[in-house]
Every structure is written in C-alpha cells, then in structure tokens.
C-alpha cells in the first residue's frame, strides 16, 4: 500500500552482555572462537534481546504513541527507526525524510556561537544550507535566545541550549517525526509552544511517533498507541483502551499487600523497619483501585528499635516517571509513634483522594525524630490506581484536582483585574 509510512517486519535487536575481546579474558574468547570453528555449535555468548520479532505498520499522517515501562525497548525501537543502530534481524522501512526530536542539542559545539550552531545542527539533521537560511529567522524567534545569538553556546544556560536545539529540530519539516520525551523540557510557555508545533505538524499530515511517560499526553495527541513490553509488541490500538490495559498491568504487578524488603538494613530483625504497606478503600477492603473523591487509607505496619525515640513515618506519592507529587509525614500530622511501643500500624487517611486518573506509586520511609536520618526506605511500596476524571480530556491537566469552584463576577474589566493583580503583589 502506498500510504504506509513505517513498516517493521519481525525486527529484533540483541546486545551482548559481556564485552568480548579484552586482555583479561582473551583466553576465553580464543577458546570460544576455537570451539565455534571446530564444533560449529557451541553455547553462544549471553545475549539480551532488547527487541524480539516486533512487527507493525504506521500509516502516513498517523500520530502513534509508544508506551512501556523503562527498559521495555522503546528507546531501542526509536534508535532503529532513526537508523542510529541497525536491527540484528528483520527488516524495516521508513518512507520519506525522517526527523528526530531525540536529545535536542546533541550536536552543539560549545565553542561555536548560537548562530554557527544553528547551521551545524541543521546540517546534522539533514537540512541544506539554503533551507536553513530561509528558516533561520523563524528558528531564532522560536528559540527565544534573542541577543545571545552570537555568544558561544558554552555560555548558555541549559534551558537556552535545549530551546535552541528544539527550535532547530522542530523546523526540519520531516515526513516522519520521532519525538522522545522532549515535551518535558523548558518552562510552561515553551512547552505550550512545542505542543502547538506538534499540533501544526499533525495538521500537515505528517507521521509522528511520540514516546512519553506522560500517558495523558499520549492519549490526548495520538490516534493509536503501541505498547512495548519486554521487547515485544504487547498491544496496539485505540489509545484509551491500550493505556487502560497498560495501567492495569502496571498496577497488578505488585500484590496489594506488600511485605517490606528493607532496602537499608537487609531485613535484620532488631532494626527499625517498615514491615508492610497496603491500601484500603472506604469500606475497609484491601485494594489498589480507588475512586477520585473517595476516602482511602494507607496502612503502614512498622517496628522500631528501642533506642529510636519518636520515629516518623513518611509517605510520598510519585507519578509513573518517578516525579515527587507530594509527601506527608506523621510529624506534620501531629502523630506520635513512640507512645505505641516498638511496633504498630500507622494509618494515613486521604479524605478524599484528589489525584486525576492514573497510576501513582506510594513510597514509604521511616525517619528518626530529627527528620535527618532514614531508618528504612520502601520505594514504590504499592501503587494507587485512581479512577476518575482524566487529564487526557484536556479539560484538566497534571495529577491533582484542587478543591475549587468557578465564579463569574459582573463588571470586572480586564484593566481593573490588572490593578487587582498589582495590588496583590504590592501587599505581598
């Protein structure tokens, strides 16, 4: 068919786990080579299959999201797609010019000025000189680096460098665009610009492959989602369905009740540690599925060393990327643990849960009374799978819905709103 932009046909990629020839194990290697020559059939070196028999097609003009846990093979797939590395077996085809928003600014030379680097980076991404000439002003406007155009990039802030890199990459005008996590760069205003650029490319019927840990972004922008799991294509289809399935798998991986494997003390009995963590819904049932707006309890069973006076339990919530969304301690809640003796169960009651739809990991730690020393940590002790309003609708964003209401006040013009603002700043 003519309108297929990307074809993957049983593509596999393996990596050798051990470095082969070196002075230290040259003997082993020679023996292995000898065996191979004589026997023709020996145990091969240990391999890791980053991708195994992955096949799919992407139509022209489609925006496809790529999801999967860290190390599932997303990056390897992108590397093969962008021809940085070649597959160990299988065939793939990309029609048209390919552009990649992976690692923007990788081609910058610190001694060269911003202007020189625009030309260099443009050339690395496959643009001709006249093409860069004609787009130069737009690139500079987009990057917002303004007066620093003729300053060597070694003096740039990292934000400026990323912006300039993205600006060049965004103007390559490829037929197929690969986007890897770059929507996470820059401030809010720049991110908005990037999303607009993406929407613009989408409207021009470009094929876009988007990799992001931000599932809301994926659902919002993609026509289809591919789910890569342990190097294979686990699912492909409607973004809502695939993301839903993905979230369920992620959340059912660990059990609902989690026995503590102390990360600090190696599970020594006598030390202070977290024994188990579990989530209970309003009816007191152990679960990890909770509803937005419902009451939810996190139960932490712990024991503490006699010598440890007044330990503190700390619970933090992270999104799938591992960003901290907020943490609470028993100290802040005014709870004293020492009164209960050396062991007990602390309960953190969220009333209600304010997270948007998605999966959040709950990390628990035990600190000394000074909040200085970790007595035990239990990263990603369990997962909170929240049902409710989704950021993918675009009506809300981020991970938290604040308790709020909207109002319209008559007779408040824009100019008076301005003065309100200014008064507020002055009083601060």
């Amino acid at each position: 068919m003519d309108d297929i932009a990307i074809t993957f046909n049983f593509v596999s990629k393996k990596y050798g786990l051990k470095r082969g020839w070196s002075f230290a194990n040259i003997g082993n290697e020679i023996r292995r080579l000898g065996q191979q020559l004589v026997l023709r059939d020996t145990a091969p070196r240990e391999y890791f299959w980053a991708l195994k028999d992955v096949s799919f097609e992407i139509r022209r003009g489609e925006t496809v999201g790529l999801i999967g846990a860290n190390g599932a093979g997303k990056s390897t797939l992108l590397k093969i797609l962008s021809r940085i590395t070649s597959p160990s077996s299988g065939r793939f085809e990309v029609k048209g010019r390919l552009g990649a928003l992976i690692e923007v600014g990788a081609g910058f030379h610190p001694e060269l000025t911003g202007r020189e680097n625009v030309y260099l980076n443009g050339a690395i991404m496959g643009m001709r000189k006249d093409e860069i000439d004609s787009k130069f002003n737009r690139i500079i406007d987009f990057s917002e680096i303004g007066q620093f155009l003729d300053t060597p990039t070694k003096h740039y802030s990292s934000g400026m460098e990323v912006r300039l890199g993205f600006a060049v990459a965004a103007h390559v005008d490829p037929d197929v665009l690969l986007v890897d996590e770059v929507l996470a760069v820059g401030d809010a205003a720049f991110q908005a610009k990037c999303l607009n650029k993406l929407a613009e490319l989408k409207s021009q019927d470009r094929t876009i492959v988007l990799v992001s840990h931000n599932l809301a972004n994926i659902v919002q922008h993609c026509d289809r989602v591919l789910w890569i799991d342990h190097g294979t294509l686990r699912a492909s289809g409607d973004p809502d369905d695939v993301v839903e399935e993905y979230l369920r798998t992620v959340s059912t991986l660990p059990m609902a009740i989690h026995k503590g494997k102390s990360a600090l003390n190696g599970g020594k009995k006598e030390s202070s540690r977290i024994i188990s963590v579990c989530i209970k819904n309003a009816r007191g049932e152990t679960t990890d599925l909770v509803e937005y707006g419902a009451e939810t309890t996190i139960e932490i069973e712990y024991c503490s060393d006699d010598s440890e006076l007044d330990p503190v339990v700390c619970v933090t919530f992270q999104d799938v990327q591992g960003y901290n969304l907020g943490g609470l301690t028993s100290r802040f809640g005014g709870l004293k643990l020492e009164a209960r003796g050396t062991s007990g169960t602390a309960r953190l009651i969220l009333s209600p849960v304010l997270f948007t739809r998605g999966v959040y990991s709950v990390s628990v730690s035990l600190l000394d009374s000074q909040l200085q020393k970790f007595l035990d940590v239990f990263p990603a002790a369990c997962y909170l799978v929240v049902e409710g309003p989704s950021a993918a609708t675009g009506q809300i964003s981020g991970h938290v819905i604040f308790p709020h209401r909207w109002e319209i006040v008559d007779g408040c013009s824009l100019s008076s709103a301005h003065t309100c603002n200014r008064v507020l700043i002055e009083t601060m």
Partner: protein
Amino acid sequence: MNYLRELREYSHLIVSFARRDIRARYKQTALGIAWAILQPFSLMVVFTLVFSRLAQIPSDGVPYPIFVYSSLIFWTYFATSVSQGTVAMTANATLVRKIYFPRETLLVAVFLAAGLDLLIAFSILLLLFIYFQYALTWTVLWVLPLLLTQLLFTSAVICLTSAIHVYFRDIGHALQLGLQLWFYATPVAYPVSVVSQKLKPLYFLNPMASIIDGYRRSLLHGDVPDFEVVGAWLLIAFILAGVAYIVFKKAEATFADVI
C-alpha cells in the same frame, strides 16, 4: 555506489563539520590561524638545525630548509589526518549515539580541515621558493596525482583505524607510536639517496616513501616521478580505499551500540 550517493546528499554536513573543526581549533587562541603557518615553519627551523647542521644529512644539493619543508607539509597532512581521523568517531560519540548521518562525513571533514592547513603551509613554500631563488617547473603538476594517491591511501587507513577505535581504544595509543616510526621510514628529513641499495626494494613497500619522494622530485628537481610506480600506487590505493570504505560502512551499523 549507494553509499557515495548518500554521502553527496550530506555534502553540506561535511562542510559544516570541517568549518566546526577549523573554528573550534583556533577559537580562544591569540594567534588564531597563524598557528597553521607557525607550526610547520618552526618545525622546519628545528629540522634544519638538527638534521642539516648537527647530523650533516645531505639534501641532494637543495637548500635544506626547502628540502625538508616541501615534504614536511605533506607528511604533516598525512599524520594529522590519520591521528584525527582515527579518533573522529569517538570524539563525536554523543552525535554518533544520538543522531543518524553517514559517519564517514566526519572523516571527510578531517581531510578538509587539515587540508586548509596544508594550503596555507603550501603558500609559505612558494614564498620560500622566492626567498631561495628557486624556480618551479611544469612538473609541479605531478603533485596532484600524488596528492590523490595520498588521499586515497589515507582514507583506507582511517576508515579502518576509526572503526577499530570504536571497539578498541588501544589503536589510539599504538598509532601515535606507529606514526613516529613511520616518519623515520619515510624520506621526509633525509633524501632517498642515503638509503642503501640493498634495502631499497623493502623501503619502497612503504607507499608514503614513494609519494613523498615523488613530491620532492616534481617540486624541487623538476623531475618526473616514475609513471609506473605512481600509477601502481594510485591503483592500489584506490582498491584499498574502496575495500576499507565497505568495511567501514558494515561496521558503522553497530557503532552506536558500542561507542
């Protein structure tokens, strides 16, 4: 052939890389591009003092400064291209790891960047000719096929060494040593006439020996190099470069995994 077609599409990138290399080399230096003159010139002075005055090396009746300078600049072009070309992949590791482009563009850029130095140094040679009141003859045109042979031969070397350097950094160390030995096995600081007749067949197995001797004959002696010898080396260099290029392109596919 597909390789070459793609390489041509990226010709703008080659120029950009070369410009980057040249700019970066002379950025934040007070003398800037003058170093391109200063370096071979001061080497010439040192060589004249050591080899001509102290060691009394003959120079076939040519003033020793021109004698050594005329071959030194071409040798420097070879040595610089080889040592910079070998590390071209690893020096640009972040690029190789992140972005696709034909990797040999980095090698061609090395030739261009070092070529600028050669051009500047060559113009100084012309000034030396005037100073020593030495006449050029039409045989100077022989420099072109010789330079082509040298380029092809250097390409063959760096296609292999740069690919090997991705896997084994050993070659970087070995090469510095190798280039020094190679320098003494090549008639840069001394004339071919001091090499004993018995050794000569072995001596001229070194392609750089024939090439450097050829430059000297055509530039200084108004002599025509052996047509058969130059032709044979040109053919051999062409084949070697072709084979090395194919090997390089095969290895290129996994550079990003190893580098």
